[in-house]
């Protein structure tokens, strides 16, 4: 294995294991777990090595098929994409432990189909953060989306209908992005991101450039469920099989936010995106609106998983707003929040998976007295909830801190207020559940009869990744300083 193209192997190993899982998993179920965990563990080690190397020696690149860039497709690893690779591989590995268990229960006999899609999705996500080619990005975006459609449609009940709505919305998003790329290609005659960033500022075509930027950004906003365009997300994520939700919910929206950062920083260049100040102002206002609306809608939900999906919608508002503040603190906060939010969402969805595995439902009513039945799971839930609210020293506090600093720097008080209000609403949301789970009366139970108080903890396959994620929330929170100095600061463009 050549040291310079290790990042290609990180992408290819999950892809090939997807094929192997389909062929061997058909014969015998016991092949699936070692192959999923083995290839993901390889990806984790590979991406950590790559990250160390990128920080030490600078960017890596790989030319696919020996067609030199800017003509051929280039895979580039810079500090930000290395960070995303580590994040994706760690989240996917932790989620897969839990998924293996819950898929065994929910989709017996169809595990090999599930994990084939699962591994292709992970390979697609790696591709998204690696690629340096604008059109290749579209293709990979569709690969990840198509596998997600399939995974969601495997759920029960309304899942197929939700998946269909997601297909329609997702295709509109992808087509808009493709149109944006079309205009860029007409303008510059190239599809390589670095080349576009070099040529685009030299052209004097403000209207065409603005059209191209607008199409691509709106397309990505649909894909990441930015507030007015979010309607597909809550249904799709809450009706997916539990095993799919634990991986899709933390990663898909976050990687799309990363793509927006990538497109703004490395392709369209910040100078061009933020030329018209009123547009950036408008997007920050929309983000503040998204945060408030997502949080308020979360208040109205009667099911823990649906509540979490609306919190995801609010969190997307945090990150989009942070980027469009167009200052160093806001951008730092957004990139940090991509990492933190992925881990927080993972923690909470692992809790959901564990509870569903034991009692089949996460409606708020069924959570009464849950602390006595599943104490370790709920301890981790409390940590995850603290991170979402933003209690120091969990990681959620630090990214929110940078976002608020960015809001003050940019004079966007509406964004600061939205962040604070959303933290308060999150506190209400989570303390309501903690109260219900801890003090929830056992006598006046609902029509299901009084909930049992017997201790019935989730299996180790689900508990160990959950505890590890909860610990990671604090570890990442405490290592915020080195993370910013060694990785994120390198990505902030000059003059910000």
């Amino acid at each position, binding site marked *: 294995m050549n040291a310079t193209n290790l990042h290609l192997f990180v992408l290819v190993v999950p892809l090939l294991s997807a094929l192997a899982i389909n062929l061997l998993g058909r014969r015998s179920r016991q092949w699936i777990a070692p192959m999923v965990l083995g290839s993901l563990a390889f990806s984790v080690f590979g991406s950590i090595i790559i990250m160390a190397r990128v920080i030490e020696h600078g960017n890596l690149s790989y030319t696919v098929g020996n067609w030199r860039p800017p003509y051929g497709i280039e895979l580039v690893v810079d500090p930000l994409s290395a960070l995303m690779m580590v994040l994706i591989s760690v989240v996917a590995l932790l989620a897969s432990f839990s998924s293996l268990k819950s898929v065994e229960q929910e989709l017996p006999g169809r595990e090999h189909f599930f994990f084939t899609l699962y591994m292709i999705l992970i390979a697609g996500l790696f591709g998204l953060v690696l690629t340096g080619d604008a059109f290749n990005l579209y293709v990979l975006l569709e690969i990840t989306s198509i596998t997600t459609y*399939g995974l969601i449609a495997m759920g029960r009940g309304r899942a*197929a*209908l939700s998946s*269909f709505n997601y*297909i329609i919305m997702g*295709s*509109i998003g992808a*087509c808009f992005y493709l149109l944006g790329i*079309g205009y860029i290609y007409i303008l510059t005659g190239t599809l390589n991101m670095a080349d576009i960033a070099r040529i685009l500022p030299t052209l004097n075509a403000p209207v065409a450039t603005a059209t191209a930027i607008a199409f691509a950004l709106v397309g990505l906003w649909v894909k990441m469920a930015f507030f007015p365009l979010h309607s597909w997300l809550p249904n799709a994520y809450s009706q997916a099989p539990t095993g799919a939700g634990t991986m899709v919910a933390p990663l898909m929206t976050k990687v799309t936010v990363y793509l927006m950062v990538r497109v703004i920083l490395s392709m369209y260049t910040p100078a061009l995106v933020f030329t018209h100040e009123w547009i950036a102002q408008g997007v920050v206002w929309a983000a503040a609106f998204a945060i408030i609306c997502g949080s308020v809608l979360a208040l109205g939900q009667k099911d823990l998983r649906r509540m979490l999906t609306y919190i995801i919608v609010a969190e997307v508002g945090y990150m989009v707003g942070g980027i469009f503040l167009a200052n160093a603190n806001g951008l730092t906060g957004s990139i940090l929040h991509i990492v933190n939010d992925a881990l927080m969402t993972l923690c909470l969805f692992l809790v959901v998976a564990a509870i569903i595995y034991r009692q089949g439902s996460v409606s708020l009513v069924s959570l009464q007295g849950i602390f006595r039945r599943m104490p370790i799971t709920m301890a981790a839930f409390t940590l995850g909830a603290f991170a979402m609210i933003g209690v120091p020293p969990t990681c959620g506090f630090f990214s929110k801190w940078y976002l608020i600093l960015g809001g003050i720097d940019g004079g966007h008080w509406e964004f600061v207020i939205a962040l604070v209000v959303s933290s308060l609403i999150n506190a209400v949301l989570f303390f309501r559940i903690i109260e219900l789970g801890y003090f929830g009366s056992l006598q006046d139970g609902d029509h299901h009869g009084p909930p049992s108080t017997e201790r019935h903890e989730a299996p180790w396959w689900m508990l160990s990744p959950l505890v590890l994620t909860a610990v990671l929330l604090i570890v990442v929170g405490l290592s915020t300083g080195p993370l910013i100095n060694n990785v994120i600061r390198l990505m902030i463009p000059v003059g910000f």
Partner: protein
Amino acid sequence: MEMIVDEIVAKYNYWIYVVLMMIGFYAMIGKRNLMKKLIGMNIFQTSIILFFVSTGVKKGGGIPIVDKYQALAGNVDAASIVNPLPHVLMLTAIVVGVSVTGVALAVLQRIYREYGTLEEDEILEKLQR
């Protein structure tokens, strides 16, 4: 008036792309039948293919098959051949479109088996009951 007509005739392929795109968009948003929504999605994707292919066209352009050594020596006049890259990109986009349509049809089949209809209103009615 004449100027507008001239403008439309001169760039008629781009106008067709916009019209097709709006038809597809309307079908996706406005129609209540899930199959019609899917057809709308296909029209939408087709309009983008038309747009991309239009960008490669040159007046009087020939087939982009050239002698390798002549091309390497720089003896090929770029204006005399059409740009093949948008066509190649659209081959990939067609493949993507076909896969999305395939997945969507499979999902529609599941919906039909579950609810016995593809009308969104009737499905929602059944869900509320």
